[in-house]
């Protein structure tokens, strides 16, 4: 046993060393991101260790309240992460819009997946619900975060075009249409790319994990296909809701473009959280 633990320790140490090298390179190139990479690596470590112990407990004491609580915590953290990672200080309306679109997009997809696709009995079985929720929440979070930044950048960068359309009597919906579409594309691209490359460019994590733990590759593939469709559904739904609600927060009741809701200085320097 000792040998295995040592090996594991050295493997992990090597992995951290890799990130350290990356930080050195980033610093040498003068890209101001080493602090973000460092904080992210530390956070990831602590969070995973904690979640490991938590899951051991929850799997041993399956109860609807625990499952719901964990899903709620994941959701809350993902919303918080999107808000924190946004380039710029978000308005209250924008934050509300992020929370609303992610909550509805993720919950609808998760419920559909558990009730209709997997037909889980009991529905709250944490061994299934927690990892699946994790994948759906994580991907939706990435999508919405990209959508938020693309929408903000679009509204700032193409301010003149939006106002040019308003001057001619366009509704805010029409004036922002291109930016909304670009934000949707930007948000969906990683998910679409990952679907296209799946199985050829890389083997997805969940499938790899199942195969490593002894499951037949066919069963693993079935699960992977199902979860991937669930992820696409959830990302699309969250992102569509977000961009459709989000662009409105840039316009006031007089259909005027209002960019004051975002601190421009902070937007430019895009500081770490």
């Amino acid at each position, binding site marked *: 046993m000792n040998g295995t633990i040592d090996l594991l320790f050295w493997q992990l140490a090597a992995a951290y060393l890799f990130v350290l090298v990356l930080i050195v390179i980033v610093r040498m190139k003068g890209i101001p991101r080493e602090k973000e990479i460092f904080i992210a690596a530390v956070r990831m470590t602590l969070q995973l260790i904690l979640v490991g112990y938590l899951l051991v407990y929850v799997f041993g004491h399956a109860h609807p309240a625990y499952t719901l609580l964990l899903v709620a915590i994941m959701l809350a953290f993902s919303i918080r992460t999107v808000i924190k990672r946004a380039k710029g200080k978000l308005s209250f309306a924008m934050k509300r819009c992020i929370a609303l679109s992610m909550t509805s997009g993720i919950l609808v997809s998760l419920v559909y997946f558990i009730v209709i696709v997997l037909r889980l009995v009991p529905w709250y079985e944490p061994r299934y619900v927690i990892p699946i929720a994790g994948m759906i929440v994580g991907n939706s979070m990435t999508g919405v975060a990209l959508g938020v930044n693309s929408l903000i950048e679009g509204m700032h960068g193409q301010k*003149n075009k939006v106002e040019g359309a308003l001057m001619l*009597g366009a509704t805010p919906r029409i004036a922002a249409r291109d930016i909304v579409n670009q934000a949707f594309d930007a948000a969906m691209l990683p998910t679409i790319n990952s679907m296209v490359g799946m199985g050829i460019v890389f083997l997805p994590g969940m499938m790899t994990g199942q195969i490593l733990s002894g499951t037949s590759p066919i069963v693993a593939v079935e699960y992977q296909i199902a979860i991937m469709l669930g992820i696409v559904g959830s990302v699309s739904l969250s992102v569509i809701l977000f961009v459709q609600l989000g662009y409105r927060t840039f316009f006031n009741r007089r*259909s005027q473009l209002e960019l004051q809701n975002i601190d421009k200085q902070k937007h430019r320097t895009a500081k770490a959280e």
Partner: protein
Amino acid sequence: MTLFRLKEVSAKGVLSIPELTIPANKVTCIVGESGSGKTTLLRLLNQLDSPDHGEIWFDQRPSNEIDPIEWRRHAVMVPQAPILFKGTIKDNLQIGLSFAGKPEASDEQLAEALRLVCLEKDLEQDAANLSGGEQQRLALARAIVMNPAALLLDEPTSALDEDTADMVMQRLTAFVRKRGMTVVMITHSRHIADTYADSVIEMKNGVPQGNGRDVQ
């Protein structure tokens, strides 16, 4: 007849207008130094901004009684830096009508608008290849095609040489007088203000000097 009326208007800390009226069916020029609030004033007339205080009337109705989008469709603004959209000259001319939910114009109408701004180009040409001055005229033609009650123009001839500017202004003013359109335009050119304006508003530090001095 008054088309716009402003009363005790202040905006963005740059404008302070006790009272100002802008006549209908006339060409009104706004002149004044940079930073004197000319563009801010024009944006108020397009409802692109609202004043911090005070009230604006359009066609005898206060701003809160008119839907701002409807307002902009009747008082179309052309910014100083022309905004072009992807596509041909024709696409760019039609897009204003499409934004405003109006039916498309015929090719003859489009060609007439182009003649009016001295831009006799093929409708199918890509708009991205136009020079700065040509883009400015295309943006002006787009607003004319919409046939609004008022044209709000922010230095519409700033990118044109003097002769072309004169020619465009000559044709434009003749056209709007025939159609009974109102023009409110910012200009840096004394010559244009003196030659083509029915009245001139001179802005100084955000305050109009006098009220629409008539030009003889």
